């Protein structure tokens, strides 16, 4: 197990290296630089700025410098937010995105599993059809449509919840963005859960359990739920990553100071270091989450063993 873990972690390094190399050079290929604005700078000032941020060096040297600093855990200064380093911006933005993401995934998991199980037990009956229609709708409506609708209804017309802002993460500010983020995931999880539950219910283990005369509740909760959860668990890794990183749109709409917002604004402003920092950070996060899911999988399924 330990050897397997080590192998996986070492294997992640080339992946991350390719990712950050691509991101580094693609970012530089985009026309315009971090200090460009409508008014062009006097050449002396442009030269001063370039020197200060090492933009006057050859690209390969800059790349080498970036890798070297990264090895030391330094993601560099932000070009855009002159008063902050990228490390500081990630340290302040990530907890926000994480909180949003975890709350969404927790809700998606509970609601999705419950709905999926219910649909499986009522297969091809009205409840099943209702839930699956809802799920399809949830998957098909994009975030950027859903979120403004939620705001219009709950904030502008009903006045129950704030229309945006973070407010240090008070629950009232969390509700709408969390719903907007969770809904598509609820739908996915419900569909996955329904499929695997139906399959598990047809298996021999369940037939045996029923033959023993166990009450239906016990059959479902003790014997069917655990194996039926497996596909959901493998979906959780990418889903958590998607929710944490995919909050880009939601953070923009609700004005939430998370990493996603830094990412979008950073790209628009050609804030090279900030974008790189977020890419590297997210890359590492996704690799890590997939790894955690694999471990969880082994814990849930006795048939799976890693070497």
């Amino acid at each position, binding site marked *: 197990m330990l050897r397997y873990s080590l192998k996986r972690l070492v294997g992640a390094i080339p992946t991350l290296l390719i990712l950050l190399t691509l991101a580094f050079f693609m970012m530089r290929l985009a026309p315009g630089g971090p200090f460009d604005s409508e008014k062009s*700078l006097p050449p002396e000032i442009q030269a001063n700025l370039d020197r200060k941020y090492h933009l006057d060096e050859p690209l390969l040297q800059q790349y080498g410098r970036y890798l070297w600093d990264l090895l030391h855990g330094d993601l560099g200064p932000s070009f855009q937010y002159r008063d902050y380093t990228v490390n500081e911006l990630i340290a302040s933005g990530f907890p926000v995105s994480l909180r949003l993401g975890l709350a969404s995934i927790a809700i998606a998991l509970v609601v999705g599993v419950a709905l999926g199980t219910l649909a499986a037990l009522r297969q091809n009956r009205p409840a099943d059809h209702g839930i699956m229609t809802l799920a399809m709708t949830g998957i098909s409506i994009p975030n950027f449509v859903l979120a403004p609708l939620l705001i219009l209804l709950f904030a502008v017309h009903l006045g129950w919840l704030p229309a945006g802002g973070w407010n240090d993460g008070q629950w009232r500010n969390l509700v709408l963005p969390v719903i907007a983020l969770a809904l598509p995931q609820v739908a996915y999880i419900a569909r996955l859960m329904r499929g695997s539950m139906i399959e598990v219910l047809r298996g021999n283990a369940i037939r045996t359990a029923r033959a023993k005369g166990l009450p239906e509740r016990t059959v479902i909760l003790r014997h069917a739920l655990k194996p039926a959860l497996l596909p959901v668990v493998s979906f959780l890794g990418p889903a958590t990553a998607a929710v944490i990183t995919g909050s880009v749109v939601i953070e923009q709409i609700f004005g939430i100071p998370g990493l996603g917002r830094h990412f979008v604004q950073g790209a628009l402003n050609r804030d090279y270091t900030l974008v790189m920092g977020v890419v590297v950070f997210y890359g590492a996060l996704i690799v890590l989450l997939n790894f955690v899911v694999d471990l969880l999988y082994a814990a849930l399924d006795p048939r799976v063993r890693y070497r």
Partner: protein
Amino acid sequence: MRRLLLLLLLPILSLQVAAGAEQVLRRGNGAEVQTLDPHRAEGVPASNILRDLYEGLVIEAPDGRLVPGAADRWEIDEDGRVYRFHLRETARWSNGDPVTARDFVYGLRRSVDPATGSKYAQVLAPILNAEAIVAGELPVEELGVKALDDHLLEITLKAPTPYFLGLLTHSSTYPVHRPSVEQYGERFSRPGRLVSNGAYRLAEWVVQSHVKLVRNRHYWNDAATRIDTVYYYPIEDSSAELKRYRAGEIDITEAIPLQQFRWIRSNLGDELKVAPYLGTYYYGFNLTRPPFRDAPKLRRALSLAVNREILVEKITAMGEKPLYSWVPEGIPGYEPARLDYADWPHSKRVAEARRLYAEAGYSRARPLTVELRYNTSENHRKVAIAIAAMWKQALGVKVRLVNEEWKVFLENRKQKRVTQLFRAGWIGDYNDPYTFLEILHSRHGLNDEGYANPEYDALLDRASVETDPEKRFALLRRAEAIALADHPVIPLFGYVSKHLVNPRVGGWVDNILDHHYTKDLYIREH
């Protein structure tokens, strides 16, 4: 009896609570600010906050008039080159330190110091030796600024500059608190470190969430300040901002979504503040390449064929004014030069446009094909479509619309290679025609048209050393007329500023620079 007394007292007590209640103002502020260092900041959002945090020698009254700020009076010598500012003895930094002439000297030197890397150091160009210092040719000590004593500041200009006092409201002229800059270096402008001399001080700054300012109890005029706390929220998306405004979460919006303008006008009409704004919306030609190089007739034809009245009535439709000059109206004492066809009926303009178009060698059978570039935005797209349609209808010009992301757009515009015709806008930095005229000077950094007329440059250069304000305006007006006749640009319309202001906010006055100091606003008690 006692209970009765209490009942009688209750309304009085609660009234007192209301009167003493904290006044909190929440403002939408467009994009997140890059820094609150006044010498490195740029853009409207940062200026909004900096006006509350800092105070220059001169500030603006709510209606935009210049009034004494950190200096309570000043003298200007007869040549108009030496300014002596008497600083208020009562002026204090937010930590209680007195504001002295040396703070201003330190601030102005820091602003032009190449090591600071200020993008707006050009604002200080009228000060003696400023340009040479920015270029690294002279040490900062050579700047024409000195402290004669604690409260007397002398600024020497390289030439009389009638709009100089107006420049002093710009953040690049603000003083900074020397001990904190020396202690914290570049990152002195973070919360907990920033010491400011304006009506407010920095309490919190959570990037992409909010900037919170609280009143500076040491401010010399704190007694007149009424808002205790002001929040600035960065909200780029104007429809998101509108929703938060409607939900009662912000009191003043920074922008208005164009698509919802009609709805806002009919539903929130009383809260909508639209006013002329010192800015021009125009199209620029790339004069360094065909088809527009050496093609004055073609450029004039295209300008003639634009129906600006239809444009502002049907397309932008927010009360903009059709523009027939380069400098927008509203600068005191300056009457902008106008295009000679400004008063022609549209039919005559189209006839003339057709004639010129033909003379330039184009026809319906052999039409001009041109790319029109604009930065991605729904509003710019609508304008571009309308103008392309006008040209097609009047002349048969084939226009291909190309939208580009902002930085790509700017890069292409500056390189002058692929760009043929581009959308542009310019908001005046200060209340003087020069802020518009200078950008068509052949050496100016914003001259993306590549316009170079020696006669125009000479008139501007003469104007910058002219001491008599009337003669100076006459020179500028002649220069403007030359540029208009050459058609390096097509002026389209003058901008308007647009905000929603909650009725509970008092003290709001429209002004042409769209500057609204929080210290002049208040929350109405009920």
